[in-house]
């Protein structure tokens, strides 16, 4: 079953003469880790934002986790829970004046989860953070810790599709290794589909079952493990 199926997906920004995403076709199977690479401005982040429901101004056909969202409409119901996203800069995605516990409890409260505190502590443990971090603010954390909090927040609603936009490019090498290990484990534990955007071919080759190279809003070529295995 496909987790993502896009048919002639097009995104046009006002004032630009060429579309950012140009009748793109793509199918990602459920359980797959799929990579998107390409130069700055090729449309990979825009594609991710469409899938996340952040950018709703798209045309064409889209099927996500067997549901068909419609353009210009917010995702409703299960899709909102089942698709989560982790951004490049966790500083920008965590509220600067909310503590870690507040940031993590909010989605749980919205979902009406029972025993939210226990769930939160479990989520912190899952991403390798100690419980005492819950009372801190984002600026009191290291870059790697902040990204762990962002991942914990994305995992709490129990997503089936996790979208990752350059999740380690703001981190140094050793923190990157820790976050990538964490994502691999989380994917196995939760049985998620991952879609990973990165400019680093090494990260894509390490993580993904398949990858697409994007260029000017289109998929230039698809890479399988045979091609990814030889990335050094």
């Amino acid at each position, binding site marked *: 079953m496909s987790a993502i199926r896009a048919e002639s997906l097009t995104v046009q920004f006002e004032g630009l003469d060429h579309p950012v995403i140009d009748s793109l076709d793509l199918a990602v199977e459920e359980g797959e880790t799929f990579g998107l690479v390409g*130069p*700055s401005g090729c449309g990979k982040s825009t594609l991710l934002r469409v899938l996340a429901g952040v950018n709703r101004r798209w045309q064409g056909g889209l099927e996500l986790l067997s549901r068909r969202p419609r353009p210009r409409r917010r995702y409703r119901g299960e899709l909102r829970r089942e698709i989560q996203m982790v951004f490049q800069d966790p500083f920008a995605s965590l509220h600067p004046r909310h503590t870690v516990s507040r940031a993590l409890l909010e989605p749980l409260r919205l979902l009406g989860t029972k025993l939210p505190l226990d769930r939160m502590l479990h989520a912190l443990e899952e991403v*390798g953070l100690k419980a005492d971090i819950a009372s801190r603010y984002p600026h009191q954390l*290291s*870059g790697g810790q902040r990204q762990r909090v962002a991942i914990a927040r994305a995992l709490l609603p129990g997503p089936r599709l996790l979208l990752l936009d350059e999740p380690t490019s703001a981190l*140094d*090498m*050793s*923190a*990157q*290794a*820790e976050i*990538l*290990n*964490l994502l*691999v*484990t989380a994917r196995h534990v939760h049985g998620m589909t991952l879609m990973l955007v990165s*400019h*680093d071919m*090494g*990260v894509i*080759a*390490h*993580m993904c079952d398949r990858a697409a190279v994007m260029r000017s809003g289109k998929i230039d070529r698809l890479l399988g*493990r045979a091609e*990814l*295995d*030889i*990335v*050094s």
Partner: protein
Amino acid sequence: MTAQIPGMTEHPLLSVRGLRIRSRDNRDRSIVDSISFDVGIERVALVGESGAGKSLTARALMGLIDSPLEVSADRLQFEGEDLRGLSPTRWARLRGERMSLVFQDARYALNPVLSVGRQLDEMVSLHGRVPAGERRRRVREMLKAVGLGDPRLARGYPHQLSGGMGQRAMLAMMLINGPRLLIADEPTSALDAALRDQMLDLICESVSIRGMGLLLISHDLHQVVRYCQRVLVMYRGRIVDAGPAADLARSTHPYTRALWDCVPSGRTHGMRLPVFDASEGVGSTSAS
């Protein structure tokens, strides 16, 4: 001091022994803990993860550490001159003239309200009396040397430059007075991957043409090996490993090994990346 001082030569540009940075509130714990090294006319890398104390070391070498932090050293010499207890005026003369520092992100390091040409001009006039015509000529030549030869760029303001161009402009400012030592603190981490090699090529080329010393600070071991002759590996305030860049891949130090092996690639697919766990003192395979 034991005989193991990285890069010890007879007349280094910079000679550091027992450099310590502590917080006034907590003198028992050193953030940079008694590190020693020399830099000659060569390219030396200082590598480690964030929080290791690399940037603080760079700032201490430039006299830029402020209260509540304090610096002490058994020796801190630049071209034979003792930098300990240098007056603010003397520091100001030294910085940008004999030793200069390129920062990580040009967006925060350049003056937003001065054009690029004006900033370079200011850099020259701050460090000596140079006639206006000569200043203009130097600015023009310097900008050309870093690949910003187009005169429109000299009239441009920092916000009008791309990240790569801003970084070039900052490098031009730091080189224009002909310093002997350039310290570059993660000069490429704010740049796109494609621009990183270009920038490092430019820095290394500029440094060798001018016969200068370079201290390159980075978290990327594989990157510095390609650009530097010697590498100092820093972990939690100490230099834990040092040696020629060419031998780094064979280092037996567990931290250097973890830094070296933690790079993802096609070959590591399906494996856990090694992660350094200080409590075990070896490259560990645990998730956190």
